[in-house]
Each structure stands twice: as structure tokens, then as C-alpha cells.
């Protein structure tokens, strides 16, 4: 189930970069990002609305590769 308040967009390039994905999974305080066995990114939809807008994911990933979308704006 997608988030009611928050959506996260990650570029295909970043989502397939296992080093970036590992970093995203490490920094997110509410576990929105998970790394699958293949190394690819999985967005945990159940946790999207827990996003605290800390921007740690944006800082951890290459510039413009992660976007946090506030669905209420």
C-alpha cells in the first residue's frame, strides 16, 4: 500500500547501484529502504508515511537521485 502522505522516488541508476542502496538502507531511520539479496533496492511502502523528512537519504545518494515527495503539497 503506497504512502498516504509521502512518496519516494529513486532513479533507476541509483536503485541498481548496490553501494548506494546499501547506504540508503543504512541511513534511513524509519527503514523505508531495503536491499534485496540481488543488491537491488526495494521501497518498503508500509514505512513511507513514517518518513521524518530528515533528508539523510538525499545526502547519502548521488545528487538528484533521490526525491522525497510530500503528497499533501
Amino acid at each position, binding site marked *: 500500500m503506497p504512502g*498516504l*502522505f509521502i512518496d519516494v522516488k529513486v532513479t533507476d541508476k541509483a536503485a541498481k547501484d548496490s553501494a548506494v542502496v546499501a547506504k540508503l538502507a543504512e541511513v534511513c531511520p*524509519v527503514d523505508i529502504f531495503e536491499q534485496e539479496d540481488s543488491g537491488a533496492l526495494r521501497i518498503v511502502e508500509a514505512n513511507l*508515511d*513514517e518518513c*521524518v*523528512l530528515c533528508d539523510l537519504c538525499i545526502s547519502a545518494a548521488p545528487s538528484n537521485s533521490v526525491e522525497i515527495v*510530500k503528497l*499533501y*503539497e
Partner: protein
Amino acid sequence: MRFYEYESKALFARHGLPLGHSGVADSAVHAREIAHQIGRPVVLKSQVLSGGRMKAGAVKFADTPDEAAQIYDEIFPIIVGGQKARSILVEEKSPIAQEYYVGVTWDGRRKLPVLIFSDMGGIDIEDAAEQHPDHVSKTHFSTILPVSPRIAKEAISATGVTGGALNKLTPIVSKLIDIFLEYDLTLAEINPLVRLEDGRFVVLDGHVDMEAEARDQHKKLLDELGIGPEETRQARPPTDFEIRGAEVDASDHRGVAGNVVEFDGDLGLIIGAGGGSLTLFDAVRSHGGKPANYCEIGGNPSVNKTCELTKLVLSKPGVEKIAVMMNVVSNTRVDIVARGVIKGCIEAGKDPSETIAIFRIPGAWEEEGFKILAKHKVDYCDRSVSMYDAAGRAVAKMKSA
């Protein structure tokens, strides 16, 4: 969380407070055995978490073991303050020369613990303080500085007690202070503490209350005293609604969304913040509203936790609206709570704009929170509207619905 008298005394015994010979009986045969072992006249006391045992006839004396067994059968069925007896404490009867009162509790106004001592024990301490103020001392002490026996000595001597009695009472009172602090108690009381005719001092009756939130910290003690986690020690057993509220709080470590208490009204409450819950609950009632529940949220509960609490409150029959109100918050985010309650309404199949009578949580991240509320057309207000007035707006909506 109140302890039974026999549990309080078990705690006192661990710290060397002087107690009479006693045993806890769970049958008339057992009461006879204990009285026989004591070998002297005994007193039988119903073990309930309520005062007024003597007036209810649930404390009686027996001169022989057979009489103890007979009295067990007489007093065990007596309901005291709406409570059934858990067991009967059989204790040696003490020849009393003088009674004293000792209590340690918290002074909410001074924000310090206070030792209360009187050389007129055995009666209601409030009455003694009113009628004989020179016989009651109140001594505040620090929880930061080391507690010395001098505090106890000064409190006792302030009531005119001197000499050998002062010297014998001081370590007893001092130990009670230690017990109060060590176990996070909200009350440690001995009433009466007595001087026997032979000059010895004995704790005749006493009870302690432990801060409910300190239970986990003192689990070992509670286990050893046989107090299980399922024993809430509240005035009544928890309702299913309250049990589910506790489950919501326990399901997620983030923040608090608990202390749910069920009431019979129709306005659901999601309330909290530094005494805000009590203030807001009273404000709703002051405006003529009927709360469906009490609860406390704070410490930045997660969206999921707030959502689940909201769904729980809305699951109560007759509850069509909720009021979401807190004092000004600094360690709880307005936007996170806003997301939680709106999500809770939607998952409960209700329209947040119709269901949330008022959202009044000003403070951290309020601009973000207000955007969310506006998007979902929820009526909200900032800190320029007092908690009292916000409660009034919620009650007015209930009355006009």
C-alpha cells in the same frame, strides 16, 4: 501500584525494619497453624488494597488458634471498599504503649519528597495535622544530595520526641526514606509504628505504592514478592478496550500512545503533553462533553502507533468524533501526529474532516502539520486558541451533530 500489607511488610523486612511474627493465611486451617506457631494472641487482618478495614470489621483479634480459624472464616468474605480479600494476615498481637505515624511521599508543589512524622499515629494523619499541628512535622529532602539520618532525627524531634525514643525511631524512619527512594515509591507509610510496653518499636501496619512506570525497573523485586505483570492493582480490572490500548502502546517502541482508560461518553480523545491530558480531559467535561476515553500521547509516537490508537478509539461503539489536542509540544512532531490520526480515520473507514472535531497541537513542525490538516480539510487551530477553548469547540461540534 499499591502493595498489599503483607507485601509491604516483606519489603520492610528486607531492610531490617522491626516487625511482629506473622504469616499469610489462605484458609482457616492455615490461620490456625500460623496462630499456633506464634503461640500468643493474634490479630487477623484482611488483605485488601483499600483502607477502612477496621470499620468494615475485617480486622479482628483472636486469643487461641481455634478462635483464629473461626475469625478467618468470618472476615475473609467481607468486602472492603468493593474489594474481596486476597488472604488474611495473621500477626502477633502487640501490647502498645504509644503509636506513631511515618510517611514518605511526594510534594507535587515543592517537587520534592517529604517525610511526614507524627507522635499521634494510628489515626488519619490529615486529621492529626489539622487538629494537632504541633504533633505533625513535614520535612522535605533532596533526591540528589545524600540522605542522612539527620533528616529523620530532625523530623522526629520536631514533634517533641526526645531521648531513647528518638534514638530508636531515627534508624527506622531513616530506613523508610531509603526504601522510598530505592524502589521508586510514591508512598511509603507506617501507621502505626508503635512503642511496645517493653520499650521495643514495631511496625504494626504499613503500605507502599510504587510508581507504575517503575515496574520494569523493579521486576526482580516484584517477581520475588509474587506480583506478576498481569496484576494492574487498579481500582477495577482493565476493560478489553484498555487492554487493547496497552497492546497498541507496547507494539511500537517509538513514543507513547497509551495509559488508555475507558469512559462511557461519545467523544474520543487523542490527548497528551506534559499534563495536557488531564487538563484537556477536565476541559472537555467542563464544557459539558462526555469523553469516551482518556489516553496519553507524547514523546513523538510513530505514525503507525498514533494511527492504531485512533482506530482503537474510533472502534468504540457510539464514538463518531475525536478531539486531537495537546499542550504546546517540543518533543512530539505535529506533522507526525497529524499523519497518524488522519490515517487512523481513513483506515477506520471514516472521513477525517468529519471525524476529527478539532486538532489543536501547536509546536514542533506545526507548519508541516497544518499543511497536512488543510489538505484533508480537518478543523485545526494553533496556540492562539487555548486548550480550554479548543475543548469547547470540540464539545460544541458534538452538541450540534
